[in-house]
């Protein structure tokens, strides 16, 4: 770790002022930032400990006047997943959070931090290798090397990294809104716009400015009434405690034997949780049957491109795997099966 200055602001105003300084970075759970600092991938001059803001209310999970839910950025992932308001109205979010990391890490990690975690690309993490995300212009070794955990959708010549979060895939399906603050004011960022595609600037992961702090994440009101089903399917090389090769979050509303609404978000396949409204629209007005699920899956994966070198580097396996996973997740939702990750009772 590179030596740094540590500040512990006692108010949101103090925190925002501290973050407005150059090379200052917020730390909450620290489960990704401190790891990156140990690898010298991240070398902030100042660490701004925002955990105090949690005690001042940024860790609250509370119902909103419109019936939606506000998740404090400083709330721990485990507390969020197990919160009665989340379990009852947004079981998809619970399932996704509990599918990720380990119990100890979930006790430390915060909601804001989960959004801001960085890719686990091996080359990004290894300061001895080129990486356009870590050092723009040096190249992307993953494209011709080991790319098992890398993207098949939305990638660029510059970068094929994936966003590793499970929680974010659920937040994308739920169309969450990210609320941020800085000394310059407050604004909201739709989940779909929060994470970026790599394009020519893979060093920029999100729409968050360097001086901005996530304060809370809001969810629209949970769909009322019967007929709504959710599922989170996570495929990984171990039964637990591993990142997704492919994950799928589904929200499905079936009424009178017909699909009225559908959301499908993919994890582990792109620089951000992946949604395609056209694929979702394919399901509307039809019976929730496998043939329609397969059509949606085909459309979602139509532009998928494998990357990586010769086996075992190539991630070509992800494309048929993702196609099957989308169909499986839709079937799970239709059958009322919440998750394959075993943590929660079905």
């Amino acid at each position: 770790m590179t030596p740094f200055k540590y500040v512990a602001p006692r108010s949101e105003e103090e925190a925002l002022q501290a973050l407005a300084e150059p090379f200052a970075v917020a730390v909450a759970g620290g489960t990704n930032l401190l790891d990156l600092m140990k690898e010298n991938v991240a070398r902030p001059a100042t660490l701004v400990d925002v955990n105090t803001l949690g005690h001042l209310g940024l860790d609250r999970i509370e119902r909103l006047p419109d019936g939606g839910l506000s998740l404090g950025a400083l709330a721990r992932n485990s507390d969020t997943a197990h919160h009665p308001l989340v379990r009852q109205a947004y079981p998809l979010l619970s399932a996704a959070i509990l599918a990720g990391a380990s119990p100890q890490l979930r006790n430390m990690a915060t909601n804001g931090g989960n959004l801001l975690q960085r890719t686990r690309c091996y080359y990004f993490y290894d300061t001895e290798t080129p990486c356009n995300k870590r050092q723009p212009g040096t190249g992307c070794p993953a494209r011709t090397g080991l790319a098992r955990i890398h993207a098949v959708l939305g990638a660029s010549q510059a970068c094929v990294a994936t966003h590793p979060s499970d929680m974010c895939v659920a937040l994308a399906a739920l169309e969450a809104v990210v609320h941020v603050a800085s000394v310059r004011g407050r604004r909201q960022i739709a989940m779909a716009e929060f994470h970026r595609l790599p394009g020519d600037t893979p060093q920029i992961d999100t729409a968050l400015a360097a001086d901005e702090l996530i304060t809370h994440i809001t969810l629209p009101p949970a769909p009322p009434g019967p007929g709504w089903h959710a599922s989170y399917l996570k495929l990984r090389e171990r039964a637990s405690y591993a990142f997704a090769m492919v994950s799928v979050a589904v929200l499905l509303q079936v009424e009178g034997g017909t699909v009225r609404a559908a959301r499908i978000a993919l994890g582990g396949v792109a620089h951000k949780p992946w949604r395609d409204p056209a694929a979702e629209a394919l399901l509307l007005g039809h019976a929730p049957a496998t043939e329609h699920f397969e059509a949606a899956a085909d459309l979602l994966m139509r532009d998928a491109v494998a990357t990586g070198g010769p086996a075992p580097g190539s991630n070509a396996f992800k494309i048929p795997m993702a196609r099957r996973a989308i169909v499986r997740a839709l079937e799970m939702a239709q059958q009322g099966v919440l998750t394959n990750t075993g943590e929660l009772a079905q």
Partner: protein
Amino acid sequence: MERALHPLESDRLPPSASIAPDSPTALPIDLVVNGKVLAIRVEPWTTLLDLLRDRLLLTGSKKGCDHGQCGACTVLVDGRRIIACLTLAVMRSGCEITTVEGLAGLAEGDAMPPAAIPDAASDAAADSATNAAPALHPLQQAFIEHDAFQCGYCTPGQLCSAVGLMTEGHLGEAQDLDAGIREGMSGNVCRCGAYPQILRAVRQVVLHRARPPAGHAADGNERAAA
């Protein structure tokens, strides 16, 4: 806008940096560690794990990977299990830390006597009544009874993690108790492969705690009330 990186001054900290309390960059913190109140100065970059091991000489918690991936450094902070290698000591000022060295002091109401361990028994016999070593935590006793460790390296983390798991109280939500324990302990890796025995040890203690009051039949397969 990208979060800028500080120009690199030095890749490596001097080896003693984590235990340099007189350094001008050290900050004062207060901790309670295994019941003992401490007021110390630490560098901001000192992890809780390094503080426990290098400064406080509580070497029970292990540095298995130093990257939050193995769970060997699991300790309890304010009763909650966390990964000590990814925590800065300065960020935990004001907290109560329990390491494996402090487990025997917990749960004394249902702690078991150390009679099963010859050395502990002889130590206990040698001590005066006022200096008797505390009885083992039920989980420690169960780990011994079920042969739940071989090299012992992951064991302190397994024990602290299991205590945390039981405190969290979500085992009743799992599909079945064994699946819940396996998933709940999945953050602790064991290279010796003692997982089946660890599962049995944790299950025994969970069921013992969930046992109905005397006079009612106990079903060994009952789901945990945790």
